[in-house]
């Protein structure tokens, strides 16, 4: 057997998924060991993904035909510049899992830890599979792995309210999954193929048909639901706020992005098959702009910090969708960079918020007055994250905002440019409120005064992530340079 890097791509999703099956076995002996095992797996996955990314930069996209069946006769995984998203995915998990070690104590009963860690790995594997596969049915299955594990993770902390939030998530999520399945079925009935590029090529070769347009449209709608774009966001706030903080971080930062990755796939399909989705991308832009403002607007009225962060996700998804909808190089690059940046920032914020909640037992701004003095490091991380999500220079959020805005203005969409720039301002209002309560108000609760910084397994990831928010802000050009070729291909296909 000769080792080839492209075959290693197959292991990227398989590793966490297979390891997930082992978690209950490990946990049988010691629930804590399951945490360690999960961490090692995420770390290995991250290392593999980074190694693959390095290969990718050196020698171009890596493709694996599973079972040796060349597409369209088999399933194809592609580690291209979009698929490289799996590297940050695994890295974020490798930071969230150690955070969860101590966090679970006291918030999740011990006998459910095994399930928690297994679900985390399943989630990771599904996310990676989703971002790598170019087979439509495979895409659907990977999405289901992600979805089911997400539903369960929302409810894992246990109370009935969590179950209700999870069920709302499940009902909408299932409808969207069903739409994907239906679209895949439709495309299959039209072309007899399941490979994305093969389907697109065959669609391009045949006469344009409303059925293909319907398929693409329902795919897009389904992914918009998964991404929680504004009018279809109703499932998100409760689910993300009620879940335990490490889960919120994953859901808000990473899982909603399957909607975005899905939309990119739809763009690829549309581009390669020559189906024009002009009306649809106009709608996307409009909804994106509305989402930016509405998400921020709704966040202002939240007292619960996690609920506030959840609404800010809606606003940020608006940025990304707006960028994708603009379909000009800068905007799309900016949107894709923001997929990463928002993940980074949101994970930072949710973990920091989680630390605060874990250390004080309080979660509303009213109760958390003055917490900046007792938890200076955590709150500093939170502040940095807040600055980044508002898009203040020179943090990570600024880079993406800058490029999406540049795209909007250079495409002549001045109104959207302004919506973007000022939507961010709206976002700022509630973060200022948060910072005020943290730093400039006196503590009213005993718990706040008595709080101490969390253990290092929680503090370390938070600080590392917060530092990354700043570093990425300064060196965001690298990300942009990394993603630009992929965007060029995408838009070239769409332009033809």
């Amino acid at each position: 057997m000769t080792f080839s890097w492209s075959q290693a791509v197959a292991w990227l999703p398989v590793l966490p998924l297979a390891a997930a099956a082992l978690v209950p076995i490990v946990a049988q002996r010691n629930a804590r060991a399951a945490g360690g095992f999960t961490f090692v797996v995420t770390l290995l996955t991250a290392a593999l993904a980074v190694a693959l990314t390095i290969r990718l930069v050196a020698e171009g996209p890596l493709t694996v035909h599973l079972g040796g069946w060349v597409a369209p006769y088999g399933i194809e995984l592609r580690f291209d510049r979009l698929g490289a998203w799996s590297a940050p995915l695994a890295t974020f998990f490798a930071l969230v899992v150690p955070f969860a070690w101590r966090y679970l104590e006291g918030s999740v009963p011990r006998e459910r830890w095994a399930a928690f860690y297994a679900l985390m790995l399943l989630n990771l594997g599904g996310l990676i599979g989703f971002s790598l596969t170019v087979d439509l049915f495979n895409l659907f299955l990977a999405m289901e792995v992600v979805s089911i594990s997400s539903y369960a993770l929302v409810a894992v902390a246990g109370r009935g309210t969590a179950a209700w939030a999870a069920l709302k998530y499940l009902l909408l999520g299932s409808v969207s999954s069903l739409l994907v399945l239906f679209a895949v079925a439709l495309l299959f009935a039209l072309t007899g193929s399941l490979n994305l590029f093969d389907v697109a090529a065959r669609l391009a070769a045949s006469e344009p048909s409303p059925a293909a347009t319907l398929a693409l449209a329902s795919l897009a709608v389904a992914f918009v639901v998964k991404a929680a774009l504004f009018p279809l966001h109703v499932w998100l706030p409760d689910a993300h706020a009620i879940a335990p903080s490490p889960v919120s971080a994953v859901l808000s930062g990473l899982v909603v992005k399957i909607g975005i990755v899905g939309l990119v796939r739809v763009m690829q399909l549309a581009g390669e098959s020559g189906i024009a989705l002009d009306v649809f991308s106009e709608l996307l832009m409009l909804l994106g702009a509305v989402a930016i403002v509405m998400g921020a607007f709704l966040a202002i009225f939240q007292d619960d910090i996690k609920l506030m962060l959840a609404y800010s996700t809606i606003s940020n998804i608006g940025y990304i969708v707006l960028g994708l909808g603009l379909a000009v190089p800068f905007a799309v690059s900016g949107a894709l960079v923001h997929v990463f940046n928002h993940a980074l920032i949101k994970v930072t914020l949710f973990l920091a918020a989680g630390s605060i909640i874990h250390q004080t037992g309080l979660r509303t701004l009213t109760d958390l007055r003055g917490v900046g003095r007792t938890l200076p490091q955590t709150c500093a991380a939170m502040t940095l994250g807040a600055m980044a999500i508002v898009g203040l220079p020179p943090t990570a959020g600024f880079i993406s905002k800058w490029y999406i805005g540049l795209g909007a203005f250079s495409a002549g969409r001045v109104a959207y440019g302004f919506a973007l720039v000022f939507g961010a301002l709206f976002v700022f209002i509630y973060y200022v409120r948060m910072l005020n309560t943290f730093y400039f108000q006196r503590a009213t609760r005993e718990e706040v005064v008595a709080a101490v910084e969390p253990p290092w397994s929680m503090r370390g990831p938070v600080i590392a992530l917060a530092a990354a928010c700043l570093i990425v802000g300064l060196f965001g050009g690298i990300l942009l340079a990394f993603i630009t070729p992929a965007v060029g291909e995408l838009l070239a296909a769409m332009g033809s």
Partner: protein
Amino acid sequence: MEVLDLRPLLAPLVSFACAALVVVARKNVFWRRFWSLCAAVLKLVVVLSMLPGTLAGAVYHTPVITLSPGVSIAFRADAYGLFFALVTSTLWVVTTIYAIGYMERAEQRARFFGFFAVCVSTTVGIAFAENLLTLLIFFELLTVATYPLVVHAETPEALRAGRIYLTYTMAGGAFVLAGSLMTLSAAGTLSFAHAGILGLDAGRATLAVIFMALVIGFGVKAAIMPLHGWLPIAMVAPTPVSALLHAVAVVKAGVFGITRVIYNVFGADLLGELGFASYLGALAACTILVASVMALRQDQLKRRLAYSTISQLAVAVLAASLLTPLAALAAVVHLANQAFAKITMFFGTGAVREMTGKTHASQLAGIGRQMPYTMGAFTVAALSFVGLPLFAGFKTKWYLSLGALHADAWWFLVVMLLSSLLNAAYWFPIIHRAYYGQRVAQPERSGRRQGAGLDVDRDAAGATAASAGGKREAPLVLLVPTLICAAYVILLGTTAAVPGMPTSIALIAVYETFGLAGPVR
């Protein structure tokens, strides 16, 4: 000649580092003060070290990070930038000393001095920004760094002021961002150039939108009239902060930004062709007069100072919008003149409040006899504002008038005259009352220096007989900075063309901008 040099980057970095050390030192008073002063002095040294080169015609620049073609974070110390940096870092040293004295017993001093250091660091960053992006970055950082200073007292009133301040300035930042993005998509670059980077081919409408966005954005910080709302309200901040906001960092950053936009983004020629500048000029003229009238009606000293600031800044904006070399020179030197004079006044006001607890103009009767040096400095500053010869303010007015005549803007002279009269109208009564007024038997408020403890409730404090009559000058740590600034006001007014003094750099800056032959060296 362009010289690759680290110093333009080093200048902001030095005090960032010191700010971090201030926070680290936190509990240790000595090291905290040491690093605070260090930040100020080191930066001044760095800035000064560039002075000879700049006078010899060198322009130092430091590219840092290129984000994408045409967009980078880079620093460049041209004459105008250096001028601004020199003014701010000089004043910062003085303000730091004053603040150390003033904030002696306040809470959260580490936070205060830390952000204080960050603040001026960002101002120097603004001064040395090579392009709009870098300028924007530091502009936003400045907003963020000043916020904790504004709300330092942590009272509901301070928080409200902070909220208003942020709302205005963040909106301004958003406008600048939008303007920068439009500039980039219209011009393909953001780097400042002497002849401007935009061209007529971008289309008149687009240019109008860009101009409005950028001017509104910077105008918020410069407190041009409809956008001035935050400034009087932000007066709840401690006096050194007010001094910093109104004389050194924030407002000047706004004016600096506007001049950059006028001369280095659009260019005098393009703007002259487009004619947008005259609208800005008209707005500024209105601001001068309206703000002066408003100042007349304020009794609280700091609020009167705030409105006076608004009016004075508008003078600089107006001068810049005339688009002639002499007026531009006036705009540039006015940055320094107004800064030194205004900061003198703030120091004086702060000292008076510290010593006697008096905050309103009407309470100042007899204070001149009680605190002669402080009030002397105050008087010097006031005379400068009115524009008497031998004081800094006169210089501005002189160049301005010449520039206005060049530009055939005779109406401008009328505005200037009225402004001088109004200035006299609201400063002279104070001075008169301070020296000749009789103390009214009103319930006296005690200053913090006599009050017990830290949080003296100023309204509830009873009268203390100790303050009646007699000399009771401010302590040296407050007095010396005040006097230094006052001395500078006179110096600036009397020694114009001495190399190394701000005026001569200002001249170089103007010559550079207008592409004229170099000044006599």
